């Protein structure tokens, strides 16, 4: 089967779509963050699997080895992981603040509460 050589990309696409589905279908903000993490990891897997060379080894120079995997994607993903956790922490901090302001982390509850606040604000403006 020629087409089986592409299976690594399909795994990536499946993982990516799982993450995407969680982000758009769930109203819970923590779950959305988890979905984003899965999405992010699928991109990492995409890069790392592209760097793999059959019969190659880890890119640390040794005397009796002459085939290495591509080091460039490794570098990009290494830094992306740490940046990813820093930005995830920022997102979680925002979630915590939203919980404090609205008393909930469900999208619908927040939306209705926001609408109610806006309406009462408009009414106040009109009476003034």
């Amino acid at each position, binding site marked *: 089967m020629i087409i089986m050589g592409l299976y*690594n990309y399909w795994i990536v696409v499946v993982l990516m779509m799982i993450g995407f589905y969680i982000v758009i279908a769930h109203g819970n903000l923590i779950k959305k963050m988890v979905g984003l993490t899965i999405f992010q990891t699928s991109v990492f897997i995409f890069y790392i699997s592209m760097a793999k060379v059959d019969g190659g080894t880890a890119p640390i120079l040794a005397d009796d080895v002459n085939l290495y995997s591509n080091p460039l994607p490794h*570098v990009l993903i290494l*830094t992306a992981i740490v940046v990813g956790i820093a930005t995830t922490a920022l997102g979680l*901090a925002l979630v915590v603040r939203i919980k404090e302001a609205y008393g909930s982390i469900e999208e619908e509850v927040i939306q209705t509460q926001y609408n109610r606040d806006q309406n009462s604000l408009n009414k106040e403006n009109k009476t003034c």
Partner: protein
Amino acid sequence: MKDLLTVVMLTGIYGLLSASFFVAMDAVDVAFTEASVGAGISTLLMLVAVSMTGRSEHSTRHKPLLAFVVVIITGGLLIYGTLDMPYFGTADAPIHENVAPRYINASLQEVGVINIVTSVLASYRAFDTFGEVVVIFTAGIGVLALLSVVRRPENDVEIESLNESMHEQHLILRIVTKMLIPFILLFALYVQFHGDYGPGGGFQAGVIFAAAIILYAMLFGLSTARRVINHTFIRLIAALGVLLYGCVGVASLLNGGNFLEYNVLLDEPIAGQHLGILLIELGVGCTVASVMVIIFFNFAGRKDYKHNQQNKKEVKDKTILNDEEDHDDHHGAL
């Protein structure tokens, strides 16, 4: 799944699994990072966030069918797009034909470091890495701006007594941790300075170092950990790491080279490269470790603070018996 705690624990397992996948793909440095970040720090932060926002998810009203259709269509298009991609593991794929051979063949002469990942990260693409460190630093500032609370001394005393009663029960954990922490810190230093010769470097070392401190804070209470690691001090270290990185760049400018061109730092180009890589890895390690610690301390500090406020509130409510929940939340937001 409605229990968010289960979701978070599964995410941790997923992180560990993807780390072992990266080992199988020869990406040892990446696996190292993912194991300490994905399975360690990110799970911890999510746990703290879940403990602050509530453990269960309410059932959603809107239908997931539309989302499902969108996902299927997007996924189908992406899979159609992969049909033109080179096969998995082929050595003559386009990705291996541009800069990669130069890195593999010439890096030992040009940089003198055995680990190609380190030489690309810290020397060839040092400017890129500088940007990443600044992003991490900025995220740390963002968390600080969002979550930091004004601490009053009397709060600390209360929290401390609370912590002490809570931690009596974890005696075995505390003793084992006390024995382990020196080794974790030592391992972090090894990873930091051995990055030239094996997998490791500033990013991994920073995360491991932070993990040791966070472990300590979890078992001995935040205020005890704060006494060991001063709040101002850790912020200073975070800024110093970025500053050190930038200063290496400026120093190479002053010596007549390009920004972050280490060859001109010392008389011998290879020695200059070694010095430059050592310094910037140190800067990266400092910033990453202290930003992770700052993030955790702020999450946990806010949790303690809220907990404390709620206790006070409950006492008040019992005496006055006035309007409940709604008011409580608004008060917290202020």
